[in-house]
């Protein structure tokens, strides 16, 4: 059966400046939420039967707007969509009513094996048609538009016919989904593949971008490794300014996945994002 058109609720809300919720900051964040306006939760961490994870989640839900961010949808895999995964994802979304649900434009496994990594796709018409079909199916099931995030990548494929940004833009337009633009990932992939990060931003349709990620990376010997375990770099702050100029007022968050500093350091980074963006947005207004 061909997927039907996804439901089209009104525009998603602007949430302001937020953080990725991590266990390491649970207590500090509840004790002192500071100017954090919303939280992004990793969907899979809460797709469980019960216990402590869901108790904490409910506590945060009382205080913050939440969005769900998955890592295992594997939207580009040639394995069938995992119905068990999708049922659990839908159940969590029903339970916590997030402002939106996102995952990555990638594949995480095939032949029943999960690599637990955000594997890049070849940017071909075949892959595009495959991903678009699957995004539509997922959106039908969740009864909402989803956001797809650009991933950092270290390889590219000889088969690719499109640039990464052309591919991402085409997926968003054809599947009628939205984009979570990870500014750090744009920078990392641009350096690793030798393209212009500004060309990337210019290739993304403004109306499709719903959220920004800001994060840090590690400089390897030849490649930049997207570790999300360091402060946001100068280059990424600069690119963020360009992104704000192009895309306008976009919900923005700091995403730290490892090497967790005190919460205050992430809050300071978030305030830097606010301080960079707000004057530009005021001028534009």
């Amino acid at each position: 059966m061909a997927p039907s058109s996804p439901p089209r609720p009104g525009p998603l809300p602007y949430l302001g400046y937020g953080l990725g919720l991590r266990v390491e900051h649970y207590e500090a964040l509840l004790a002192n939420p500071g100017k954090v306006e919303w939280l992004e939760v990793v969907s899979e961490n809460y797709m469980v039967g019960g216990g402590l994870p869901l108790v904490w989640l409910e506590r945060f839900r009382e205080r913050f707007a939440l969005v769900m961010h998955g890592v295992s949808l594997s939207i580009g895999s040639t394995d069938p969509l995992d119905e068990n995964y999708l049922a659990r994802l839908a159940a969590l979304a029903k339970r916590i009513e997030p402002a939106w649900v996102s995952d990555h434009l990638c594949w995480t496994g095939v032949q029943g094996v999960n690599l637990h990594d955000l594997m890049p796709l070849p940017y071909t018409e075949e892959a595009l048609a495959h991903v678009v079909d699957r995004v539509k199916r997922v959106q039908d099931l969740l009864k909402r538009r989803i956001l797809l995030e650009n991933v950092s990548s270290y390889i590219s494929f000889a088969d690719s016919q499109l640039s990464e940004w052309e591919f991402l833009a085409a997926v968003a337009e054809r599947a009628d989904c939205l984009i979570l633009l990870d500014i750090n990932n744009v920078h990392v992939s641009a350096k690793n593949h030798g393209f212009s990060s500004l060309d990337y931003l210019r290739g993304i349709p403004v109306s499709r971008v719903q959220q920004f990620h800001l994060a840090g990376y590690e400089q390897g010997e030849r490649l930049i490794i997207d570790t999300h375990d360091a402060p946001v770099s100068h280059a990424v702050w600069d690119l963020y300014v360009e992104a704000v100029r192009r895309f306008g007022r976009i919900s923005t968050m700091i995403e730290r996945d490892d090497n967790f500093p005190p919460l205050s350091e992430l809050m300071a980074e978030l305030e830097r994002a606010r301080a960079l963006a707000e004057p530009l947005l005021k001028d534009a207004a």
Partner: protein
Amino acid sequence: MSSLQAIQQQMLQAVLAEKSRPPQMVRDDAIADASSRLEVYRHGYRIRLRDALKVEFAGLQCMAGARFESLLDKYVAAHPSEHYNIRWHGSGLPGFLAYAHPWREKPQLAEMAKLDWAMSTAFDAADESHIGVADLAAVPPASWAGLRLTLQHNLQVLACVYNTDAFRRAADRNGRRPHLRRYAQPRQLLVWRLGTGVHYRRLDDDEWQVLGAAIQGETFASLCASLAGHHGEAAAMARMVALLTRWLGAGLIHGWVLP
């Protein structure tokens, strides 16, 4: 097979293989060669799984000591992950340690991994309500003999030949590594969750016999008869009341079914 399928399957094999050359479709360029590019994914896969398993197997880390990381690496190499949640890759580790050389020569490791994994699964098992002493007052006196207790689904009982609980306790409390002890007879270890806390404790022989019978759905009269075999008719009821009170206090009992 579609071209996309072929690319994904070749990439999968290249990441999983112990030694591999990059598939031809991966581009070389002036920034980095294809091998260096592939290595980022190969290295990342192994590190991510190892780090996730470390969190789930604190007792095993305490028991295995310096061998812990190589043990995890061997497991990851032998068993690709099949679950979308990375921590669930731990489900196969107890079985791996039970059959794979050289770990099978040290069965305490598989036993330790079983306890760690039981605690992990109890941690975020489905929430269930439990009853207290006052709730049992609603049972009509004439119905007690045929009453069957229903227990929490997260409750697990492990037969332990070694003092694995001491290793887990040491890991949780950052204490000194205990000496390994082997028992002449297996001891039963109860693992369960009360609220958000995961607990474990040893069961006395008579308690295991009765709790095991309750798990099997035996009637209350059968549980009492079982205890009478241990303690004699006169003392059996007092012991049953003591056990029932303890189980209720620990939140083990979800409810009951009357005939």
